[in-house]
């Protein structure tokens, strides 16, 4: 049976919404990698941790998951700062393999902590103020997804503004450009790193709140989000907010179309194949400042 054009249109729309949320998920990783050069393989697992936290909070406070960001964002900033001091700072500037090993270790700990505490079954928040569809004729829009997409876009642009228009942003970009020169200019690089890592992790807490308005938490979602966000960074390159948004939307749309046109069982294979092939032909766009 041939898919109708309606279905394709609907899938593309779903994919775009998902893509905006992905861009928020990838933003923190992009910052941490771009500014600090830290290869964080535990990024997805922080989103997983956030999702469980949101699940607990929203269910016990009987409130919408997106409102939980009020709690998760500051909390995750603190967690991020603590992890930076305890684990990331000692491996700054070490070879990539060691950084990857350490962050894989962090991811492993988070994943199995979640498994111990919450067991393996996926969990979804039962209360959501926005869980309905609005029919627009050709397509229908899931309000929770629309809202999370808009909020994601808003935050991504907000962070972009922060980086380009404020003094702190300038300091961050200077640090990203050249640590030594930045510290000569009187920027406290250590503080900037702390700030950036904290910000990167707090953004996962925010993404998790939006995610839980329609998704579910499970100890293993971290691995797929982790790889997916890296794919987005690889496709979009570092630095540009437009590149990040574009590649997120591409990944979201590919995934959504694969799910409707091929099979939901293989929704990751095609983005990953695209990723590997893009790596071959655009390695220069991938290594950032080089």
């Amino acid at each position, binding site marked *: 049976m041939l898919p109708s054009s309606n279905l394709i249109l609907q899938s593309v729309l779903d994919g775009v919404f998902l893509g905006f949320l992905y861009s928020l998920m990838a933003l923190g990783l992009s910052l941490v990698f771009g500014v600090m050069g830290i*290869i964080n393989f535990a990024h997805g697992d922080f989103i997983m941790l956030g999702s469980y936290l949101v699940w607990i909070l929203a269910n016990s406070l009987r409130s919408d998951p997106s409102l939980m960001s009020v709690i998760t964002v500051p909390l995750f900033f603190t967690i991020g700062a603590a992890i930076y001091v305890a*684990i990331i700072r*000692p*491996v700054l500037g*070490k070879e*990539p*393999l*060691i*950084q*990857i*090993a*350490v962050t*894989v*270790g*962090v*991811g*492993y*700990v988070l*994943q*199995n*902590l979640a*498994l*111990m505490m919450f*067991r*393996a079954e996926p969990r979804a928040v039962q209360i959501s103020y926005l869980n309905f569809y609005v029919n627009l004729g050709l397509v229908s829009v899931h309000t929770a997804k629309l809202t999370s997409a808009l909020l994601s876009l808003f935050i991504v642009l907000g962070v972009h503004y922060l980086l380009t228009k404020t003094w702190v942003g300038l300091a961050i970009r200077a640090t990203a450009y050249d640590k030594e020169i930045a510290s000569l200019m009187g920027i406290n690089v250590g503080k900037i790193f702390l700030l950036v890592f904290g910000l990167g992790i707090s953004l996962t807490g925010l993404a998790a709140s939006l995610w839980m308005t329609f998704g579910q938490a499970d*100890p293993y979602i971290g*691995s*797929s989000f982790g*790889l997916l966000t*890296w*794919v987005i960074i*690889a496709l979009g390159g570092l630095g540009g907010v437009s590149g990040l948004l574009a590649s997120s939307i591409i990944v979201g749309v590919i995934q959504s179309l694969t799910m409707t046109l091929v*099979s939901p*069982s*293989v929704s*990751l*294979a095609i983005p*990953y*194949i695209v*990723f*590997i092939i893009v*790596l*071959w*032909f655009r*390695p220069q766009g*991938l290594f950032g400042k080089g």
Partner: protein
Amino acid sequence: MRARISSFVLPALIVVVAGATVPFLVGFNQYYVLLALQSVIIASIALAWNIIGGYAGQLDLASFAYVGLGGILATTLMTEYNITPWVGMFLGAGVSATLAFFIGYPLFRFGVKGVWYALSTAALVVILHEVSIMVLGSFDYYIPFVEGWYYLRFRTWENLYYFSLIILAFVISLNLYISRSKVGYYLKAIREDEVAAEAVGIDIRKYKLLALMTYASILGFIGYIYIVSQRTFSYKTFDSSLSVYIAIIGIVGGLGSVSGTFTAALILKVVEEYLRGYLGGVLPGLHLLLFGVLLITVGILRPEGLSTLTDALVKKVKARIWGGAP
């Protein structure tokens, strides 16, 4: 010259002889023999990883892509066409090496390295996992029970254990041989600094590809043993978390250290089994959590892993045997 040959054959021989006594020591208790078999399989895979990960310094996270592909090929040849795994395992090795070539050639050709290499290989396992859902469907493929050396399938575990011990010995000597040969020097130079390595005349693409294909073909060969020890295969054989686990063993053991990697594989497997056996019902996933902590600790405090300890031990043993000369 003599010392050189014995230096990579003798350790393997010691491992085989010592390993061969294990079933006798445990009185052929199948539980311990199976545990020994699984440890030897994991150790062989981790030591194969040592070639690409430890020597060449490429963080490969795709080990079970090659184990799965080679193993499923050999198993299918046996169950569908009655072709003995003695042939099938070599074909499995060939197919895995071919996959490695098609993955590795463009990656190295276009200079994909570091985090991007790791991610590409991690993606490879997921791709194979999902493609195999399409090809195999979500079924378990059970290997029908046909006993004998022709099928390398037995009721009890001893024979498979002895066989895998020989594979382990081969992988150990290969590792030691590589580390003392030109290839080994070149791979280590690539691991340390690709640009500098290339400037002293090392064709980094060629040597990385060589390392990758050697690693993949060993895994493709072991694949059948792995699957036959599992009794079934399915798309789940392409296991990303096990692939990461192999890399963890390599890092915890110490990059490029044969004794370290071997020791880490044995210790982690035994700890995992101990925790499953005694604490499994109480704290699920505890052993993986501990491994995570171990990995962080190693990364921060001892990037050389267990290797300094085990290397010292090996040196002492050597000194006993040869009276001082290393």
